[in-house]
């Protein structure tokens, strides 16, 4: 393997190459930094490139390998969504509010991946505070989809998805509150995993909606996602909602066959709201699973239609509370010459936040305000319980629920920015998993109008192993996940 094709390899292949001494981590990291240079001008996937510290970390990884002290990810490159705090490195969350924020500590996810030897190449662009489904709310400008630069890569983890799709890096972290890992993975032809709520620590991950937020990964295969999840998952006392549950060997579990897999299909997922070519690709994927001995059963999720309105009460309510910490006093943007304390708060926040973040804070403040709490917030948490009950009943009969990840392939930048509701409906198939705290994965399953389509699999709580093995077995039978946008081969 020459330095010219290192970017084409996934994490597992690169790990073997490093192990066999085919190339060093320094050579690998330098080759990928060259790709950032060559392609990020047009993609805008990175907010910060940490070239110098990446090369130093790669050098350390090579030394550790010589001494035989290497961790499972030793010398392997990745990027972090700019929502994860990284000590001594700019952490903007895609916002003017944190334009100059250099974090004084590392997120647990960052610490664990670095501890296993992973090398961070930079921080990726995202919708501001992860609020968006197109990457267009970023203060640093939208990310472009490598499959068509006039289109959105999805969001909010759009920079992570685009950089993996364009073969700049083999893997990226992301976060998913309503679909922010899975929808961009679908729109860019990558593999995106959102684990069970509480599976991966939220410590140091800038909070948007704390009862929904979960960290995960965007990779080129389920095998690579399994490798990373094994390092990231596990109890963390610094996250009060972290769940103490054993972490299985996800890589070892990949071999489980599709024979006897019970796949649930939700009728509403294939109704009039679904793009025709997307539906065709997803149905073909389901028949591949069936051909390998999986059984398809229809399951009923009667309250699913209310998942988007439920989410748009719960998520803004939690966001309005979480984002109250940005006050212009301790860190972040501060308005010039405030008249008084109220003016300092109001103007620092008014100047530091973009339009979508302001809308969500205002929506959240409204639904929590006196006289409206019962009608909106309490009601939404009751409907959320009904949605979670629907899933619980469905998982008594099936192992996974399968369907499309997004209603249509990547849309044009600017197409959905006028009406917030149109944008919110992008996440119609993914939000249910967040409301119920369930794990979900999106994997490439074909094309619609030359743009990638994602197959969405949802499992019961802590069902990541079965999701990953199902996705891996599908990827052994198909090559959609190996397709690369022509200009980035």
């Amino acid at each position, binding site marked *: 393997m020459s330095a010219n094709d290192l970017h084409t390899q996934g994490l597992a292949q690169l790990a073997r190459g490093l192990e066999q001494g085919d190339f060093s981590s320094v050579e690998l990291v330098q080759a990928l930094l060259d790709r950032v240079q060559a392609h990020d001008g047009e993609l805008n996937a990175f907010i910060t490139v940490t070239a110098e510290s990446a090369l130093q970390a790669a050098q350390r990884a090579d030394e550790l390998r010589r001494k035989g002290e290497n961790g499972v990810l030793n010398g392997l490159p990745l990027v972090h969504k700019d929502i994860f705090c990284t000590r001594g490195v700019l952490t903007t969350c895609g916002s003017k509010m944190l334009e100059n924020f*250099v974090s*004084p500590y590392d997120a647990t996810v960052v610490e664990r991946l670095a501890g296993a030897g992973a090398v961070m190449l930079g921080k990726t662009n995202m919708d501001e505070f992860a609020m968006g489904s197109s990457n267009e709310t970023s203060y640093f400008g939208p990310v472009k989809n490598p499959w068509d630069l006039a289109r959105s890569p999805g969001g909010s983890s759009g920079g992570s998805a685009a950089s993996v799709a364009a073969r700049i890096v083999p893997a990226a972290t992301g976060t998913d509150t309503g679909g922010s890992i899975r929808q961009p993975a679908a729109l860019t032809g990558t593999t995106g995993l959102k684990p*069970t*709520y*509480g599976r991966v620590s939220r410590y140091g991950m800038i909070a948007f909606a704390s*009862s929904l937020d979960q960290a995960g990964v965007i990779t080129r295969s389920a095998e690579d996602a399994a490798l990373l999840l094994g390092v990231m998952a596990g109890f963390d*006392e610094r996250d*009060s*909602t972290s*769940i103490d549950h054993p972490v299985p060997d996800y890589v070892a579990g990949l071999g489980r066959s599709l024979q006897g897999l019970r796949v649930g299909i939700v009728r509403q997922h294939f109704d009039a709201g679904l793009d025709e070519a997307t539906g065709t690709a997803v149905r073909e994927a389901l028949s591949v699973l069936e051909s390998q001995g999986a059984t398809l059963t229809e399951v009923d999720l009667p309250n699913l239609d*209310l998942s*988007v*309105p439920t989410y*748009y*009460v719960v998520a803004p309510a939690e966001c*309005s509370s979480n984002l109250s910490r940005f*006050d212009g*006093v*301790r*860190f972040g943007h*501060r308005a010039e010459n405030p*008249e*008084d*304390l*109220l003016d*300092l*708060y*109001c*103007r620092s*926040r*008014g*100047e530091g*936040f973009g*339009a979508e973040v*302001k*809308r969500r*804070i*205002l*929506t959240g*403040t*409204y*639904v929590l*305000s006196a006289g409206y709490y019962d*009608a*909106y917030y309490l*009601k*939404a*948490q*009751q*409907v*959320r*319980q*009904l949605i*979670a009950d629907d899933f619980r009943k469905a998982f008594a009969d099936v192992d996974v629920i399968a369907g499309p990840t997004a209603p249509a392939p990547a849309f044009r930048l600017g197409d959905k920015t006028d*009406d*917030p*509701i149109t944008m*919110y409906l992008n996440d119609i198939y993914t939000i249910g998993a967040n409301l*119920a*705290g369930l794990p979900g994965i999106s994997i490439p399953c074909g094309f619609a109008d030359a743009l990638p389509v994602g197959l969405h699999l949802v499992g019961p709580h802590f069902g990541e192993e079965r999701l990953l093995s199902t996705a891996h077995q599908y990827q052994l039978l198909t090559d959609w996940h190996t397709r690369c946008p022509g200009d980035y081969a």
Partner: protein
Amino acid sequence: MSLDKDQVQHIAVLARLRVADEEIADTVDKLSRIVDFVDQLSQADTTDVVPMAHPLDAAQRLRPDVVTEPDRRDEIQEIAPAVSDGLYLVPKVIE
């Protein structure tokens, strides 16, 4: 329009968020659309449904009451917009 300009201005004060004059019309329009959209929830029958407190029904755990964090005040105040003698500076609150 389910919300008017005065309501939005009131919510903005509660949220400690300045909404500029040129942003207000668009904010009223879009917030109204969001509120109309989430109003569908009122159709759901939630009689006797316990509101969700945690997606996995987990309870908040307690930790032993011991000091775990070192003093990093100087380092943490390096990123503050205005400090003096270890204190955060804000406009005068008490005359």
